[in-house]
């Protein structure tokens, strides 16, 4: 029976190792542009994310149309003129967390993720820092980074040049649940 016990333990551990996939279906994305003339602020809670705690693979996908602005005209212009969301409906990130933390233990872990960030059809390699916190086994990810409009061919015409910042601050936060089939 001792052998059975060992095998059971090994089997359980293998089984456990396969379990480290976490998903989030309602990650909050906030984008913020600030100029002396006006602040522009939009939010979405429809980003989806998959995190593999074993490999550190992290992915995000945001339907751009789900970003809602304070002013409806801003939202229309954002979709139609800047992001062209009928052509490029999604903003995505695919990357890998360097030395992924052990999410089975509670704590707050600063992480660095490297990967490809895509919006407006233009992909850029980025290194972004963030934190993973585990509270009572619940995994939460937070990050803040900036996106330069020019890096993604997002033209800001002269006439609104003073209203829209050249760099947009992006805040991401997501609470994950273990992936279940």
């Amino acid at each position, binding site marked *: 029976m001792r052998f059975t016990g060992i095998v059971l333990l090994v*089997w359980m551990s293998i*089984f456990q190792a*396969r379990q480290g996939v976490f998903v989030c279906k309602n990650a*909050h994305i906030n984008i913020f542009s600030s100029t002396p003339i006006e602040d522009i602020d939009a939010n979405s*809670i429809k980003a989806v994310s998959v995190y593999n705690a074993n490999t550190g693979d992290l992915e995000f996908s945001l339907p751009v*149309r789900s970003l809602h602005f304070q*002013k409806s005209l801003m939202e*229309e212009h954002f979709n139609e003129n800047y992001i062209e969301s*009928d052509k490029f409906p999604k903003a995505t990130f695919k990357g890998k967390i360097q030395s992924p933390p052990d999410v089975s233990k509670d704590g707050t872990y600063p992480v660095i993720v490297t990967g490809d960030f895509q919006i407006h059809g233009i992909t850029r390699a980025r290194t972004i820092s963030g934190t993973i916190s585990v509270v009572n086994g619940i995994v939460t990810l937070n990050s803040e980074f900036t996106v330069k409009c020019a890096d993604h061919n997002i033209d800001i015409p002269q*006439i609104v040049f003073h209203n829209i910042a050249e760099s947009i601050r992006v805040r991401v936060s997501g609470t994950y649940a273990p992936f279940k089939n």
Partner: protein
Amino acid sequence: MKKIFTLFVLLVAGMSVLAQQNNKTPSADSMLNLLSSADAQHEQILPAFNATRLIFSPTTETVKKNNLNFLIIHRFGDMGTAIGGFRSFFGLDAVNDVYLGIEYGFTDNFQVSVGRNSIGQMGETQFKWALIHQSTDDHTPLNLTLLAGEGIRPYGSFASFGDRLSYIGELIISRKFSRTFSFELSPVYVWDNQPLPYVPGNPPGFFALSTAFRWKVTKRMSLIADYEHPFSSFRNNSGNFEDPIGFGAEFETGGHVFTLNVTNARAISQINSLSNSTSSYGRGQFRLGFTISRMFDFNKKKTSNNY
């Protein structure tokens, strides 16, 4: 032997679970697709038109909730007749019609507009209700908007108060065929208690059809054209009446939409232009016009903190 058998069974069971896991745990990529595929169903297209009006016709668009659209519309004098030419700078010294108005969105799909036309000093109230929106997956292939309006001429001599009133009803149907091309077709019914022009044989009510398109040339500039035809035997037979045709360019400058156009019709209100357009391109009776539309947003500021 029993031990080994148990061990074997456990191993097999473990392997099969692993195999299943491998099959059932898709790659992160397809998992993302799996997670996000549900949200994009029947999504509304981006607006087919930039503004709530083209040249004569209203578009299927309405002013969004808590937004106020301020409109200034002008039609100048004839460019090609004796009153036109260089002396009046192609009609700019004469003003044929001016419309001042506001449009307010009570919901994202329902707006009320109030305005005043110079022609007939007619005050107008209109209700516009966007019923159906075209979806990206063509689940609904068209935009459908209903418009009901009323005009009142407070000045001039009329037999009764009722005679000062006129009505318009319109079913606006549009389709955005591509990112750059939108087309609309609207059956219209006009009823004027004292028909315009007030001559014998002119019935108070008639049907009309208005059609228009927008072709987006650049991100901020579109070419538009607008044509209206009243189905009225009185107008067809008299020989004086002309179908209003307008051509224009629409410039969108974040907050403003500015339209520069050339039309034969002098009137801005459809009640007037459909009832009584007699000016013809052939006789030089065409004019410059413009529309300035300025949107004000009264939505309360939402910050990410209280989101």
